[in-house]
C-alpha cells in the first residue's frame, strides 16, 4: 500500500481547469498526480481504488468562516468536534476565527489550534488571527509572528474593526504578509441594541432593528481605505444589497477585494423570525435581511461578485440559546448543512450551476485567502469532496458531529449531499 488513491468513474467538476466530465483521479504522496479520462489501476502502482461512479468529484471544499471555540469555550465546540463536523459536511478545510478565550492574538494560541487540528486529523485548519490585541480595537496584533505560526488572514470577527485608523494601518501592515484583512462590517453605534434586521418584520414584532446601513457604512469606508492603501480586504458574511453593490463597483475598478456570503442569508429572510415564533435559531449577525437583499445576494452569486460561500458556523450551547430572543447570543451552526442547502436550493433551484457552486466552495475561498487547493490540477493537494446529487437528506440536528445544534434548518428535506471527503489522499470517515 503506497498511500496512493485512485478515484474512478466519477464526474469531475473542476472549474479552475474548466473541467466537467468523466475523469479518473490519482492521488499520490498527498497530492494530485494524474487526472485523465481513464487511469488503468495497473498503471497506478497498487493504489487503493475508490469507485466514485454516480458521484461528483470536486476539489476539497474550504469554509472560510467558522468558530471552533477552542481554546476557552470547549462546551460549545472543540477543534476536534468542529473539524469532524466539517468533514461530515463535506469540507476538507476550514478557516477559524480568533474570538476564542484567550483570543488568538499570539503564536501560542495559533500553535495550539494547529496542533489540535493535526491530532484530530479530520480537516485542515487555517487559523485567522486577530487584527488587534485582545480584539480590543486598539493595538495591532503581532501579524508577523502570527503569520510565522500559521495564521492566513486577520480579523476581529465577532466585532468589527471599528476605528478607521486601525483599519488603515492593518491594511498597510498586513500587506507585508500578503494576508487579507477580514472585516465583520458593522457599525455598533448604528446597531445599538438591535437584535434582528430593521424592516417590516422588526416593526411587526416590536424587536429592535439592526439597519442595513450598519453594515454598508463600514464596507464603504473600508473600500476607500483599501483603495488608498492597496491592501487586501475581504468582507465576511456580506448581507445587504448595498454592500454587495459597493464590492461589485470596487472589483470593477480592480481593487483586491473579496467577499463571502452565508447560506442562511441566501435562503432565509427576516420573516423567519416571525414564522418560527421568535426562534433564537433565527438570530445571528448580520441578521437575516429583507427579501430584496436576499435576491441581490443570489444575483451576486450568479454574476461573480461573490467569491465564496462560508457558513459562519457559530456553535452555542442549548442553554445559551434557550432564552428570551433579545437575550440570546447571535449565531447558528452551518458546517453540516451548507453543502446540502446549496445543492438543493441553489443548484437544483437553478440559481447557479454546479461548476459555479464548486467554485464558490473551493476555488473562490482558496484564492481569497491565498490557500493551497481549490483545484484538482496535478500538483495540487490531494483534497477531494465527493457529492451525491441524488441523495435526499432530512436535516437532523441530533445527528450533527458538532457539539451544538443551533440551526434554523432542522427538518428541511434537501436533495444532494456530501458523500465523503479525502484529505491528502486519505479517506476521512467522520
Amino acid at each position, binding site marked *: 500500500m503506497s498511500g496512493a488513491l485512485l478515484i474512478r468513474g466519477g464526474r469531475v467538476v473542476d472549474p479552475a481547469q474548466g473541467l466537467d466530465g468523466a475523469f479518473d483521479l490519482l492521488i499520490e504522496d498527498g497530492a494530485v498526480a494524474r487526472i485523465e479520462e481513464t487511469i488503468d489501476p495497473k498503471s497506478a502502482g497498487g493504489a487503493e481504488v475508490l469507485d466514485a461512479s454516480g458521484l461528483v468529484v470536486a476539489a476539497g471544499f474550504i469554509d472560510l468562516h467558522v468558530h471552533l471555540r477552542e481554546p476557552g469555550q470547549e462546551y460549545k465546540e472543540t477543534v476536534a468536534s468542529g473539524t469532524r463536523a466539517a468533514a461530515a459536511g463535506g469540507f476538507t478545510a476550514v478557516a477559524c476565527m480568533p474570538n476564542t478565550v484567550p483570543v488568538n492574538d499570539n503564536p501560542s494560541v495559533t500553535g495550539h489550534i494547529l496542533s489540535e487540528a493535526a491530532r484530530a486529523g479530520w480537516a485542515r485548519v487555517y487559523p485567522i488571527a486577530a487584527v488587534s490585541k485582545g480584539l480590543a480595537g486598539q493595538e495591532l496584533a503581532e501579524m508577523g509572528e502570527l503569520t510565522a505560526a500559521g495564521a492566513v488572514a486577520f480579523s476581529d470577527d465577532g466585532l468589527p474593526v471599528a476605528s478607521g485608523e486601525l483599519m488603515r494601518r492593518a491594511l498597510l501592515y498586513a500587506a507585508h504578509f500578503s494576508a487579507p484583512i477580514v472585516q465583520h462590517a458593522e457599525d455598533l453605534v448604528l446597531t445599538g441594541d438591535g437584535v434582528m434586521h*430593521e*424592516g*417590516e418584520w*422588526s*416593526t*411587526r*414584532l*416590536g*424587536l429592535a*432593528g439592526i*439597519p442595513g446601513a450598519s453594515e454598508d457604512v463600514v464596507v464603504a469606508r473600508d473600500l476607500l481605505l483599501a483603495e488608498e492603501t492597496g491592501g487586501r480586504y475581504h468582507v465576511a458574511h456580506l448581507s445587504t444589497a448595498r454592500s454587495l453593490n459597493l464590492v461589485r463597483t470596487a472589483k470593477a475598478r480592480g481593487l483586491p477585494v473579496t467577499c463571502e456570503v452565508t447560506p442562511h442569508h441566501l435562503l432565509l429572510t427576516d420573516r423567519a423570525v416571525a414564522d418560527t*415564533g*421568535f426562534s433564537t435559531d433565527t438570530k445571528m449577525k448580520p441578521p437575516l435581511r429583507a427579501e430584496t437583499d436576499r435576491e441581490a445576494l443570489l444575483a451576486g452569486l450568479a454574476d461573480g461578485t461573490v467569491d465564496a460561500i462560508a457558513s459562519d458556523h457559530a456553535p452555542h450551547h442549548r*442553554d445559551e440559546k*434557550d*432564552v*428570551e*430572543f*433579545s*437575550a440570546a447570543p447571535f449565531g447558528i451552526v452551518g458546517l453540516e448543512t451548507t453543502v446540502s442547502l446549496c445543492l438543493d436550493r441553489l443548484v437544483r433551484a437553478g440559481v447557479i450551476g454546479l461548476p459555479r457552486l464548486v467554485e464558490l466552495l473551493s476555488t473562490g475561498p482558496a484564492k481569497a485567502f491565498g490557500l493551497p487547493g481549490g483545484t484538482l490540477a496535478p500538483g495540487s493537494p490531494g483534497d477531494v469532496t465527493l457529492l451525491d446529487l441524488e441523495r435526499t437528506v432530512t436535516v437532523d440536528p441530533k445527528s450533527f458531529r458538532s457539539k451544538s445544534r443551533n440551526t434554523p434548518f432542522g427538518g428541511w428535506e434537501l436533495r444532494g449531499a456530501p458523500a465523503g471527503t479525502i484529505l491528502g489522499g486519505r479517506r476521512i470517515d467522520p
Partner: protein
Amino acid sequence: MAAPGWNRKDLLGIADLSADEIRLILDTAASFREVAARPIKKVPTLRGKTVINLFFESSTRTRSSFEIAEKRLSADSLNFSTSGSALAKGESLIDTTLNLQAMAPDLIVIRHAHPGVPHMLARRVEAGVINAGDGAHEHPTQALLDAYTIRERKGRIQGLKVAIVGDIEHSRVVRSNIHLLSKLGAEVTLAGPRTMMPVAVERLGVRVAHTLEEAIEGADVVMMLRIQLERQSRTRFPSVREYFRLFGLTAERLALAASDVIVMHPGPMNRGVEIASDVADGPFSVILEQVGNGVAVRMAVLYLCSGAHREAA
C-alpha cells in the same frame, strides 16, 4: 354563556386573531360589564381555577386590572414579580416557567420586556397564557379594551377614522391596535416624529401622516401614546418643549377632528408632553372609561382562555 367560537388556550396577540374571535371577546366582555355595577362584584365563573400573574416588568394598572378581573371571577390568583423572585437569583426563564408549571396553574398572565416571551412560554406550559405586554410587540388586552370603548361610544368600528399619535416605534399598544382596528374595518393614520416611526409600518395597512394636524383632521378617534421619557435617548427628539409643540394634543388642534371625536390614552399620561390637561380632562376624553372597561375585557379573556365556556357547554 356558550362561546363556541373560541378554541385557544392562549391570547398571545391580536395579529393571529380573526375578526370573529375579536368580536366574540368584545361581546363576552359586554356580558361581564354589569358585574362592576353589582353591590357584590363577584361571579363564580372561575371558582377553583388558579391564575398566576407573572410580571417581569413593573406595572401598576395592567396588573391591578387583571387582579380585579380574576377576583371578580372567583379565581385563586398569585402575583409573581421579579423583585424577590428566583430571577433575581439568576434562574433562567425556562426554569422559572417549568417550576410554575409544576404547580399546575390554569392560566398564566405574563408581562415581559422582551418580545416573544409569552409565545416561548405558551409552547412549554399546559396552562393558558395571556400576554399582558411583551416589549414593543403586543398588548392585546389593551387593544381589546380600546376597541370595546370605541364600540360602546360609536356603536361600530367599521369605517371609523382613527388617528394614533406619538412614539409608534416603542409602543406595544399601537401594534395591537393597528391589527385590531384594521381587522374590524377602521382606517388608521399614524403620526409622530420620524425618528420614532418604525420602518415599513405602512406594510401593516396604515397611513403615516407628516403632521399631527394631518392625522387628526376629521378623525372619529384620537389615541395619544405615552412618551416614555425614561427610555428615550436624546437622538429621538430634542426636547419635551419641542415635542409638545409638534405632537402635543391641545384643544385647538382637537378642533380639527370630527365634532364627536373621542380622545383616548392607554396611560399613564404625561400631561403637558403628549396631551394638554384640558384635553385629558375635557368632554371628549374617554380615558377613565377605558380603565373601567379594561376589567370587563380581561374577565372575558380569562374566561375564554380558561376553557370554562367549554366545560359549561
